[in-house]
C-alpha cells in the first residue's frame, strides 16, 4: 500500500516536472526572442561525423568574437531525416538562414538566394592571406563550377551557395600480401599494371590453393571504379563530339542511331573494358554494401580495395597489416588494347560535400552571406579542415597530414564518361540494368548486350523524353504564376526585398527551351 502511494507520488512529481519543463521551454523561448537584442542566424547541416560539429562550433565562436552583435546557432540534423525535415522547414517558412543546398534545381531556385554577383568580389576575410584580392568564387578549387553546372538548365550561370569539403576515392593495397604475391611492393601505375596484378593474384590462387579476390568491391564503390577506368574510353570522343566536353545532350544522336553500342568503336571498347574490370572485383559485388567490401579487405580476403577518403582511418590505422594508398590508375595512351581512345590520366571528378546556401526567407541575408564568407576564408577553412579531418574546397588550404594521399588530383585530362549510365531517365536505365549482367557477369556476352540495347534503345529514349517534356512543361506553366506574383508583390510588404521576377523569367526560359526541344523531337511541327 505504501509502495503504491509512493509510486503515485513519484508519478505526480515526474508529471509536474515535465509540465514545468514544457512551460519553461516555451516561456524562455519567447522571452529570449523578445529580450535578446542580438541578431540570430541559424545554420543547419547534416554533417554529423566526428569533428564536424566541433569545427562549426569553433568557426561560430570566432565569428561571434568578431561580431558581438550576432549570435549563431548550429542546427545539426541527421542525414537520414534531413530531406523530410528540410522540406517541412522550407515550406512552413521556419527554415534556418543557412541550409544545405538540397532538392531539385527548381526547388533550389525557389528556396535559395543566388549569390552569383557576390562571388565575383574578393572575400574580405582573406585579407592578409595568400588569397587576398582573389574573387571569392576563384578561392574554391573548381571556381564553384560544379554548383553552377548542376543548375545549368534552370538558372544558367547562377551560383546558389558554397561548398566546404571534397572527398576522393583511392586504391588501398595490402602491402604484405603484395610482397608475398609479387615479390615487390611496386604499386600499379597504369591500368595495364593493375590488370597484370589481378592476373598474378589468380595465378597465386591456383598455385597456393587460395581464394584471394583482386579488388574487394560493392555496388557503390564499383560505380567509381567503372567511372574512372571505363570512362577513359570516351575521353577522345568527348573532345571530338561534345563542344562542352561533357556527356550531356547525346540523346539525339543515340535516338537517331548515329552512335550505337554495337558499332561505335568507343562504345564497344568501353563495354569490353567494363567487362574486364568487373572480373577483378568481388564476385556478386552488386549485391554488396561498402561494409562488406571493407570487411573483405580487413579480413585479408582481397589484395586491394577501392574506397573513399572517409574510410581511411578504418583501413590504415586500425589493421595489423600495412596498407599502401594510391590513385586508381587509368589506361595510358600507349596501352596496346585500350590506349586508342583515351587521353591518359584524368583530373579527378572531385566530389563535394557540405554545400550551403542562404534561404530566401532569411531576415538577415547580409549577415548570413558574411558568415559564409568567414567560413570559407583561408584561415577559418584551414582550422575547419584540421578539426574535421576533411579536405577543404578552398585552394591553398593545407591538407591534413593524414589525408595527404587523399587530396584530389585536379590536374589532368577530362574524365570521359561511362556508356552504361550517361543517357536518359528510368526507361533507358531500366533497360540497361536488365541486361548489364551480360557485361559485368561471370560469362560475358558483350555483343549480345550491345545488340539488345541497340534494338530497344529508341523507344525507351522516347518514353524518357516524354517524361522530361511533361516535367519541363509543367514547370514552365508554374513559373507564369511565380513571375506574375513577384512582379506585383506590394513594395510596402516587409518581404518585398526578397522578390525577383526577373530571375524567375530566366529559370522559365531554361525549362521552356528544353521542353520545346523535346516537343520538336517527339512531334515535329507540320508544314
Amino acid at each position, binding site marked *: 500500500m505504501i509502495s503504491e502511494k509512493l*509510486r*503515485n507520488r513519484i508519478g*505526480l512529481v515526474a*508529471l509536474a516536472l*515535465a*509540465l514545468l519543463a*514544457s*512551460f519553461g521551454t*516555451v516561456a524562455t523561448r519567447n522571452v529570449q526572442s523578445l529580450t535578446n537584442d542580438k541578431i540570430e542566424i541559424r545554420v543547419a547541416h547534416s554533417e554529423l561525423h566526428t569533428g564536424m560539429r566541433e569545427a562549426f562550433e569553433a568557426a561560430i565562436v570566432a565569428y561571434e568574437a568578431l561580431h558581438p552583435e550576432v549570435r549563431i546557432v548550429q542546427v545539426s540534423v541527421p542525414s537520414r531525416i534531413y530531406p523530410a525535415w528540410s522540406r517541412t522547414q*522550407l*515550406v512552413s*517558412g521556419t527554415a534556418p538562414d543557412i541550409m544545405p543546398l538540397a532538392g531539385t534545381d527548381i526547388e533550389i531556385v525557389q528556396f535559395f538566394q543566388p549569390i*552569383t554577383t557576390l562571388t565575383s568580389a574578393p572575400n574580405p576575410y582573406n585579407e592578409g592571406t595568400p588569397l587576398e584580392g582573389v574573387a571569392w568564387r*576563384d578561392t*574554391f578549387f*573548381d*571556381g564553384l*563550377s560544379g554548383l553552377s553546372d548542376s543548375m545549368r538548365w534552370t538558372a544558367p*550561370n547562377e551560383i546558389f551557395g558554397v561548398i566546404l569539403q571534397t572527398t576522393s576515392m583511392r586504391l588501398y593495397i595490402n602491402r604484405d600480401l603484395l610482397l608475398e604475391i609479387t615479390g615487390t611492393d611496386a604499386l600499379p601505375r597504369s591500368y595495364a599494371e593493375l590488370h597484370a596484378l589481378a592476373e598474378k593474384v589468380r595465378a597465386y590462387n591456383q598455385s597456393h590453393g587460395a581464394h584471394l579476390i583482386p579488388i574487394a568491391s560493392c555496388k557503390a564503390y564499383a560505380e567509381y571504379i567503372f567511372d574512372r577506368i571505363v570512362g577513359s574510353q570516351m575521353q577522345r570522343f568527348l*573532345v571530338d563530339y561534345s*563542344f*562542352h*566536353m561533357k556527356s550531356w545532350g547525346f540523346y539525339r544522336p543515340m535516338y537517331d542511331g548515329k552512335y550505337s553500342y554495337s558499332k561505335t568503336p568507343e562504345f564497344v571498347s568501353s563495354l569490353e573494358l567494363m567487362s574486364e574490370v568487373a572480373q577483378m572485383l568481388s564476385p556478386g559485388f552488386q549485391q554488396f554494401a561498402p561494409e562488406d567490401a571493407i570487411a573483405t579487405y580487413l579480413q585479408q580476403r582481397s589484395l586491394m580495395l577501392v574506397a573513399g577518403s572517409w574510410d581511411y582511418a578504418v583501413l590504415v590505422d586500425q589493421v595489423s597489416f600495412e596498407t599502401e594508398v594510391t590513385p586508381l590508375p587509368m589506361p595510358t595512351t600507349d596501352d596496346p588494347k585500350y590506349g586508342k581512345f583515351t*587521353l591518359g590520366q*584524368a583530373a579527378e571528378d572531385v566530389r563535394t560535400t557540405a554545400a550551403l546556401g542562404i534561404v530566401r*526567407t532569411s531576415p538577415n541575408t547580409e549577415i548570413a552571406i558574411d558568415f559564409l564568407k568567414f567560413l570559407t576564408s583561408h584561415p577559418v577553412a584551414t582550422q575547419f579542415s584540421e578539426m574535421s579531418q576533411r579536405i577543404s574546397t578552398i*585552394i591553398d588550404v593545407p591538407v591534413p597530414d593524414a589525408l595527404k594521399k587523399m587530396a584530389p588530383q*585536379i590536374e589532368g*585530362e*577530362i*574524365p570521359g564518361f561511362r556508356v552504361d549510365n550517361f543517357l536518359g531517365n528510368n526507361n533507358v536505365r531500366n533497360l540497361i540494368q536488365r541486361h548489364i549482367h551480360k557485361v559485368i557477369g561471370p560469362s560475358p556476352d558483350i555483343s549480345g548486350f550491345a545488340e539488345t540495347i541497340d534494338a530497344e534503345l529508341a523507344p525507351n529514349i522516347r518514353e524518357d523524353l516524354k517524361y522530361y517534356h511533361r516535367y519541363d*512543361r*509543367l514547370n*514552365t*506553366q*508554374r513559373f*507564369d*504564376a*511565380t513571375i*506574375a*506574383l*513577384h*512582379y*506585383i*508583390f*506590394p513594395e510596402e*510588404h516587409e*518581404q518585398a526585398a526578397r*522578390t525577383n521576377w*526577373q530571375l524567375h*523569367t*530566366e529559370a522559365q*526560359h531554361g525549362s*521552356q*527551351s528544353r521542353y*520545346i526541344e523535346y*516537343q520538336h523531337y517527339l512531334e*515535329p*511541327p507540320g*508544314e
Partner: protein
Amino acid sequence: MSLPRFALRLRALTTRSPIWLTAFGLAFLGLSNFCAFAANTRPNDDPWLDVINTRYTAASHKFEKLAKASPDDTRLTLAYAASLLTRDPMTRANVRTSRSILIDLLSKLPVSETHYRPLVLLLLGRIDHDHIEPVQFESSRAFYEQLLREYPQHPLADQAAVQLHLLIYLQSPESRSGEVVSQIEATLPTVSNKSHRLRLLGLATRIYLDRLKDKSAALSHLIAAQEEGSDDKSLDLHIAYLARQLGRLELAAKHYRAFYESSPRDNRAYTARRLAQELEEASKMSTAVAKPTQP
C-alpha cells in the same frame, strides 16, 4: 470549492486509482503541448507571405477570398488570376477562370495604366501559348505583339519578345527556320535586358546549328553572346569547338586558352590548354606552308 479542498480531492482521487493519475497526466501533457503549439502558431492570413514561401495553392485560396471581398482591387484580382495557373490541382477550369478574369481586367484597365495592364497582356499570351491545348498560336501572338506595341519600353516587353520568339519557334516547321532566325535578329536591338538578349542569341544559335546546319552563323552568334557580356565560361569552349570544325585554328586556340585562363580549376582546363597548344602549333605550321620563305 476552495483551492485547498480541490487539491485534497485531487490527491485522494489519484492515490485511489492509477487510471485517474494517468488521465490527469495525459491532460497536463496535452495542455502543455497545446501551449507550445499556440506559442509557435501565428495565424497567417497574408497570401504574400505564402508567395514568398512558395505556398502558391494556399496563397491562391486567400487571394480568391480577398479579391472577391475587394473586386476593385486590381492587384488582388490579378494575383488571384495568376495564382490559379499554379493552384493544385491544376485544372482546365482554373485556367479558364484565370483567362476570363484577365480578359475582364484588360477591358477595364486603360492603356495609360502601365503597371498591371502589361502583365495582363503577358499572362494572356502565356495562357494561350502554354496552358491551353492545342496552342492558340494566333491569339497568343496577338497578345505578345500588343504588349510590345503598346509598351515597347516596359520591362515586361523583353519577356514578351522572348516568349513571342519561343512561340514562333515552337510552331514553325523546319523549312521556315530561316524566317524564324531573321525575326529574332531583327528583334534583338529592341531588347534591353541582357539576359533576355542572351536567351534570344542562344535560340538563334540553336536554330543555326540544329536546323540550318550553318556553323559559321552559329559561331558569330556565340561570339556576339560573349561580347554581350555573358558570364557563361563554357561559351569559350563552344566557340573553340565550332572554330576548330571550321578550320579556324587560331580562333579555336584563342578561345581554348581563354577558357583555361578564366577557369583554371575546371576539370576541363588541362585538356583545353593542351588543345590550345596543339592548335597554335598546327596554325603556325599551316602558315609556314602557305607562305614559303622567299629565295
